[in-house]
């Protein structure tokens, strides 16, 4: 009874069907190679490929995470260095804000020019500033500027000292042109100067 069951199984039937075909050596070779290739393809597709990809992905992920960890450690080190460097210049940060303010702050600029004029006995006759926004400019992190024209009167030494003080003042100023003319005749030694320049701010 047990033998009958085996005989009736699909495997036995297949073997029985294939047996005559395999009697020919050449056919047997073709059959073996073809079956091997199909088997390799099948297992390659459903077993080898997913396993290999998972292994490679995991190795790659480990390497990437190690690299990421090193990069983060470097960045933390840089933050600590930056913090200590910042502590050294903390008291000087306000100087940067004064040199390059966030807003145009032209009233403060005019006040500086006026104070310098008083200091150097220089008379400002006319001071004109081009249109500059009072509110915060939308162009952030971009150097903005406004032009000014100033006309003043003074002796040559006073005028020279005044202009040196302007250029060396904390608020950044650049002078584009200077136009000199004599005031009240050549004997008086008084000059009239017209200054065109720029001042800067960074929102």
């Amino acid at each position, binding site marked *: 009874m047990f033998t009958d069951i085996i005989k009736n199984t699909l495997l036995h039937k297949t073997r029985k069907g294939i047996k005559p075909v395999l009697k020919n050596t050449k*056919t047997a070779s*073709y*059959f073996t*190679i*073809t079956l091997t*290739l*199909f088997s*390799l*393809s099948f297992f*390659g*597709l459903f077993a*080898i*490929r997913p396993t*290999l*990809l998972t292994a*490679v*992905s995991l190795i*790659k*992920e480990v390497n*990437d*995470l190690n*690299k*990421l960890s090193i*990069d*983060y450690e*470097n*960045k933390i080190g*840089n*933050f600590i*260095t*930056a913090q200590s*460097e*910042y502590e*050294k*210049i903390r008291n*000087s940060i306000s*100087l*940067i804000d*004064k*040199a390059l303010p966030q807003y145009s702050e032209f009233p403060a600029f005019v006040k*500086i020019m006026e*104070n*310098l004029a008083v*200091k150097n006995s220089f008379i400002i006759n006319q001071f004109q500033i081009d249109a500059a926004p009072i509110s915060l400019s939308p162009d952030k992190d971009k150097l903005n500027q406004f032009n000014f024209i100033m006309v003043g009167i003074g002796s040559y030494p006073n005028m020279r000292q005044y202009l040196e*003080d302007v250029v*060396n*003042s*904390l608020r950044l100023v650049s002078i584009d042109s200077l136009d000199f003319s004599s005031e009240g005749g050549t004997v008086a030694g008084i000059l009239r100067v017209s200054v065109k320049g720029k001042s800067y701010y960074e929102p």
Partner: protein
Amino acid sequence: MNRKELYILAIITFLTVCAWIIFGFLHAKKASTIDDKNLINIVPLTPTFDNEIIMELEQRGNF
């Protein structure tokens, strides 16, 4: 389909699967697993300030 055609089909199938495995392997090896957020976070930071400018500003007159 005779035995030769079946044999050629087996070879083509095998080669295709091999190529697929190799390309998948190379792609998995090359593709980065670090997300964009982390890539932005690890951009190097220069931890130095321009001290010369600060010193120059300190020497300027504050009126």
